[in-house]
């Protein structure tokens, strides 16, 4: 009996030893250099693969961070704690933090903008924009087919009354939506901005008025009520100067009393779009 055990151990041991040697040799022959830190960083990343950092997914980003090609805070999704934990793990600087969010600069929902024609086709903004410029009257406004909403990995864009509205509290500023919009209405703005001019149409005021109830007509009332430099003229419209500090707050909106109502805080904008529904989210954008 004892011998059986002994022989079994010996037998198994010899085979195991043989196999071990083979594995050792093979892995020496076919060795691939790899950096364990990449796996480490990858584990600390959110793994949404949104591409907001400009790299092809989180794994690519992790590689770049380890290689020192880009700072860990380039990931728009990670919170600052996550970013600093990555930095700690690698023993590098986290980089200064600059957070962004997306905003759809158009206020033309179906109530404000005429639906000129009936549209029969693929429910997608790019497709619609190619068919006679889409069904809505403004050739520069939101097409309302929701391509951006579908592209958002975080579900931060809601289609209300055929208009895309970004929920700032859900948006991480990855920018996935920006490139889906055939009208280029989506802009990445500083996360602490609150007031926007919801119009992107570059045409003259009377033409805008023909097609939309809430265009920016370039009256400059906002410029007068706000601080110097908070707004700037951009062709036939005004835009918020997002790189100017401090950014305009709600009081500017009140003071300006925009004649068309395209200068709004995010809260107001959402509330208007939700007019038919009760406004539930009080703490929006807080």
């Amino acid at each position, binding site marked *: 009996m004892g011998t059986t055990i002994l022989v079994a151990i010996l037998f198994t041991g010899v085979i195991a030893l043989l196999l071990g040697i083979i594995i050792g040799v093979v892995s020496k022959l076919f060795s691939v250099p790899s950096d364990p830190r990449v796996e480490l960083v990858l584990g600390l990343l959110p793994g949404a693969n949104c591409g907001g950092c400009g790299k092809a997914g989180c794994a690519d980003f992790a590689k770049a961070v380890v290689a020192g090609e880009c700072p860990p805070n380039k990931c728009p999704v990670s919170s600052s704690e996550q970013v600093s934990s990555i930095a700690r793990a690698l023993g590098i600087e986290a980089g200064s933090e600059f957070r962004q969010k997306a905003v759809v600069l158009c206020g033309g929902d179906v109530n404000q903008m005429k639906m*000129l*024609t*009936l*549209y*029969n*086709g*693929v429910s997608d903004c790019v*497709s619609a924009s*190619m*068919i*006679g410029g*889409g*069904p809505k009257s403004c050739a520069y406004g939101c097409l309302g087919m929701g391509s951006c909403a579908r592209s958002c990995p975080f579900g931060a864009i809601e289609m209300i009354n055929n208009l895309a509205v970004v929920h700032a509290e859900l948006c991480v500023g990855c920018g996935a939506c920006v490139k889906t919009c055939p009208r280029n209405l989506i802009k990445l703005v500083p996360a602490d901005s609150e007031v926007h001019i919801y119009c992107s149409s570059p045409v003259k005021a009377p033409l805008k008025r023909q097609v939309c109830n809430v265009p920016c007509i370039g009256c400059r009332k906002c410029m007068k009520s706000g601080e110097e430099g908070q707004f700037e003229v951009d062709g036939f419209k005004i835009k918020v100067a997002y790189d100017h500090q401090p950014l305009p707050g709600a009081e500017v909106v009140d003071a300006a009393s925009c004649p068309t109502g395209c200068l709004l805080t995010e809260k107001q904008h959402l509330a208007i779009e939700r007019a038919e529904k009760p406004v539930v989210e009080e703490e929006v954008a807080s």
Partner: protein
Amino acid sequence: MSEENKSAIMMPKADDLILSSSPHIHSDVNVRKIMLKVILALVPALIASVIFFGWDAVRVIVITALSAVVAEGLWLWLAKRPLTPLRDLSALLTGLLLAMNLPSNASWWICVVGGFLAIWVGKQVFGGLGHNIFNPALVARVALLIALPAAMTTWTPTGGLLEKNMRLPSGENVSITTVAESEAPAVISCATPLGEAAELKRTPNGAATFAPITEKSDYVKYFLGERLGSLGETSCLALLIGGIALMFMKLIKWQIPIFFIATVAVFTAIVHLCAPAMTPPPLFHLLTGGLLLGAFFMATDMVTSPMTTGGCILFGVGCGVITCVIRIWGGYPEGVSFSILLMNALVPLIDRLFQLRPFGYVRKRA
């Protein structure tokens, strides 16, 4: 142009135009019409089954078709989707095709279960018409065949509307006049010609092994439909009428049935010539079993067959080979349904193999 003239003519109002992509005109075909035509092509076979199996056939057809339609409606209702897909008649067609695959004495609950299996498991879980990978009717038929082998292969020679003689495996003829006459419908289990062939194979007798079932008169009977089997396995004549009509209307890709049938003929001919005791002659294979039904109506299902000509040929040949392999060597006497189901599974690979080259395609230099 004067003012009066102007007011006299009707000018279009400026609003309410429809925007849509080109083209702005359309051929008059639609899914519903296609399905309707296939159903019409199936009518001769349906009539033949009623002639040979009597009111039992009517019962099976009605219950199966109805349950398929109800299953589709019920699913759509449960999924809170509009009931419009019902209008395309595809559920009805699936039901009818399934009915053609059932024996005339199938109990009502088999028909109902089959209808639901076909529509729910075969079609709707995949996303409805167009998304199903397998032929829904065949999914149901094969599932029933595997789950209820006895019920699905018990062929009771209940009388048809015509008074006729049906042959029993022993070769004796049992005369049955009407349904009413046989008070207690004693289940007389009989075999289909293919079943008989499998039976005969067990007692090999050289070239004469299959003599009892391959006389000239037998072939005529097989062709006209005087034989046992599923509803759709009866009249080759009726199936041919429908199938050829479909081919002429270009509703099916002709390559599939032609290559399917030709492959079976060639394959069985080779095997029969090499070993006559292995399998009956090719004509027997062509005329019996569900080959024609499968080749014309089941394999050609648009959704589950390849789109390209080359793919269709390969698909037909594949169906033929698998059918023959199962018929000659397999445990089941009939292999048509299995072969089509298997080839359905291969369609994505076939489509990939026969990917079309664009007009004027030149391979890019590496």
